[in-house]
């Protein structure tokens, strides 16, 4: 059985890594690197393949959120527990210096998971926020994981991987605390759509008429959790309107606001098409990649009042209740 992961050794290796990079190559070329770090980002991957995918996203993400990234990689090999350190570097276009961030990869088998929190504790960057990105539900249910949560300012999950809305929201509720905010990529995926809807409705002539909305019907396709979030957000915006949420098997998803003298319909897929009083408006809805979603979530490390209130409404909608 390997000896395990010693934080002091990892930190020493990191120091050696930076010292080596500062010296330049064997030909004496000084590579001139800039070290950047704004947080510790712990990434809990589900598998080898998932860890490889996460590394790709991290490399891209570091440009906007330079971090000490700690990637936890589960291993099927009993007794496995090891760590390696390396740097993620890139040369910004037209610049002379490389920008580098640290990455530490910890591989641990299930029987050694208990050692992981201690290792993370020892290698967090002092005085900077710690964010935990749990890429699957396996980790969330591990008891060892609960030891890490109090250290974390923000936990980022993707509830679309957690099953039906009621179960997902219940798990998310259990992970929240006074010191840990929970961000959900299923919510982040809706930002472009929400922004486009908000902007379309911000029309000076239309805004006062929204108080006439009596019913909001949301028909949502493949992602019930996103559909629930969307319905909850609309419900919070117009609390007097009745919200109907239906699954829809075919694209595109749709929203309809109806009330006296008012009929606004929206369809969305690759574009948002809004029909108001016979006029059609269109806005592109680019599909955000994982990196875009994470970039947005990492830029909000404090409380997010809109999401907090939508989450409460979504919980009630998922339970089949009428939000108060």
């Amino acid at each position, binding site marked *: 059985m390997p000896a395990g992961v010693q934080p002091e050794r990892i930190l020493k290796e990191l120091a050696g890594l930076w010292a080596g990079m500062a010296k330049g190559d064997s030909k004496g070329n000084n590579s001139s690197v*800039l070290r*950047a770090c*704004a947080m510790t980002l712990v990434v809990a991957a589900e598998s080898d393949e998932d860890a490889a995918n996460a590394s790709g996203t991290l490399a891209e993400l570091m440009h906007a959120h330079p971090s000490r990234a700690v990637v936890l990689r589960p291993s099927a090999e009993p007794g496995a527990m090891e760590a390696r350190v390396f740097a993620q570097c890139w040369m910004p276009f*037209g610049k002379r210096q490389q920008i580098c961030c640290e990455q530490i990869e910890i591989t641990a088998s299930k029987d050694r998971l208990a050692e992981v929190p201690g290792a993370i504790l020892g290698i967090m960057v002092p005085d900077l926020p710690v964010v935990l990105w749990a890429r699957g539900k396996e980790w969330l249910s591990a008891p060892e994981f609960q030891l890490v949560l109090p250290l974390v300012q923000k936990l980022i999950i993707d509830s679309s991987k957690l099953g039906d809305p009621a179960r997902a929201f219940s798990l998310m509720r259990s992970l929240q605390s006074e010191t840990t905010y929970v961000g959900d990529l299923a919510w982040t995926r809706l930002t472009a759509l929400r922004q486009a809807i908000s*902007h379309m409705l911000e029309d000076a002539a239309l805004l006062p008429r929204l108080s006439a909305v009596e019913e909001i019907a949301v028909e949502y396709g493949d992602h019930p959790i996103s559909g629930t979030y969307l319905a909850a957000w609309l419900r919070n915006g117009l609390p007097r309107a009745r919200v109907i949420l239906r699954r829809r098997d075919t694209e595109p998803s749709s929203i309809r606001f109806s009330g006296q003298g008012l009929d606004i319909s929206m369809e969305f897929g690759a574009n948002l098409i809004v029909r108001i009083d016979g006029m059609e408006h*269109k806005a*592109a809805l680019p599909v955000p990649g994982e990196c875009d979603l994470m970039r947005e979530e990492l830029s909000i490390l404090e409380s997010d009042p809109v999401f907090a209130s939508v989450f409460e409404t979504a919980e009630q909608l998922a339970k089949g209740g009428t939000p108060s």
Partner: protein
Amino acid sequence: MAEGNPFQDLLRFERRVPPCAVVIFGANGDLTKRKLIPALYRLAYERRLTQSFATIGNSRTAMSDDDYRAKMKESVKQFLEDSPFDEDLWNDFAKRLFYVAGDVGSPDLYRAIGEKLQMVEQTFQTTGNVLFYLSTQPSHYEPVVEQIGAAGLNKGSGWRRLVVEKPFGHDLSSAGALNANIQKVFPESEVYRIDHYLGKETVQNILAFRFGNGIFEPVWNRRYINHVQITAAESIGVEGRGGYYQEAGALRDMIQNHLLQVMSTIAMEPPAHYEPGSVRDERSKLLRAIRIPKDHEVPLYAVAGQYGPSHIGGQEILGFRQEPGVDPGARTDTYAALTFHVDNWRWAGVPFYVRSGKRLPKRVTDIAVFFNQPPVSMFNREGDAPLRPNMLVVRIQPEEGISLRFLSKHPGGGMSLRPVSMDFNYGSSFGTRTPTAYETLLVDAISGDATLYTRQDMVEASWKVVQPVMNRWATCHFDFPNYDAGTWGPRESDEMLARNGHVWRVP
């Protein structure tokens, strides 16, 4: 508007502009093609423009709306920075893009613009808000504003604002006259004088750096700061703008506006709030505290230069007087360096050296703050060169960021110190795209946020500071050219600093 929107999400949504029509005078000019229309398109790309938005361009050239759209489409494709061109989005944007041909001196033009404004207001619900943008040659500013007023376009059901590009006059009296004439038609609160330097992210970051952190302000004064150097260097010459430039020169073109605004940002007192009135009050106070040199002091505090021909990298470089469109006997300053003193409690006795020039060795704009030496040099042995003082450099372009130079022990035995630099690279540390200055400033003007725009008193205060230098230089017979293209300017500039025991930093 946003306050009333129940779906607003300030943390996650981009700030968006309210409904309005933008009328651009000089719509066929370089600024419109290179900056304004690409900036508006980029705002549309980021969904920051509402559907209730329209642009009306004017110039003398006869063109249909479609011709103008085709022309602007090519410009956007050519000048859009860091963004893809999206055909569908362009088509949507172009539906709201119109053109009115006409002479800016003719009342007919303003009748036609008025009709077009009515049309876009009805079609796109622009709610009567209109932003007039003067992107014409400066001699047209006053006639355009006068005609806008005569046609009654300065009043309507919504707000009416005016954006004025620099130069705001060519001296103190013309700036005063321009301001007076503009204010006959638009109140000062609706006049937005654009200085695109203030829209640059890094210039805005100076405010964040100074007033968002607690560690810099305590040392940001005469007790700790020895002097400040502000450099805006260009490696290029006049690039076909010889005719314009020979009338302007470095002092008018750069120092009177951009660099004095940068200096006011670096040296102003902390505003009570981050809102237009407070920030502009402090900038204005700083500009008014700059000592105005007396005529006989000008040679001590100001140096003019003009580049001569040279060879750089095997290429023959023309001197300024050999550039196309330039008078062979031109006395224009292609280089200007000035020493400013700020007569207030914070800065008394601290010189601010400001220089700008063309055909210097590289393109760079930065601010270097030199701190005082420690009172006792305990590490210096007899005969050693003096230790280098701490220096903070704010880089505005091209590699935006902040560096702090301090001394560190050289590894090994003994106590030998060497300077090291701690770097914060703004563009790289936040690798996301930053908006161009014009995107920022257009959104601000349409949203009614004048924080990054200059006010009448600021413009006039900065003219007052440089006017004695301009007066003196107008009567001087300089021995031009006095520096070779590709060098850091005339010897007299070095001598100006040497008189205070200072040396220009090589950026």
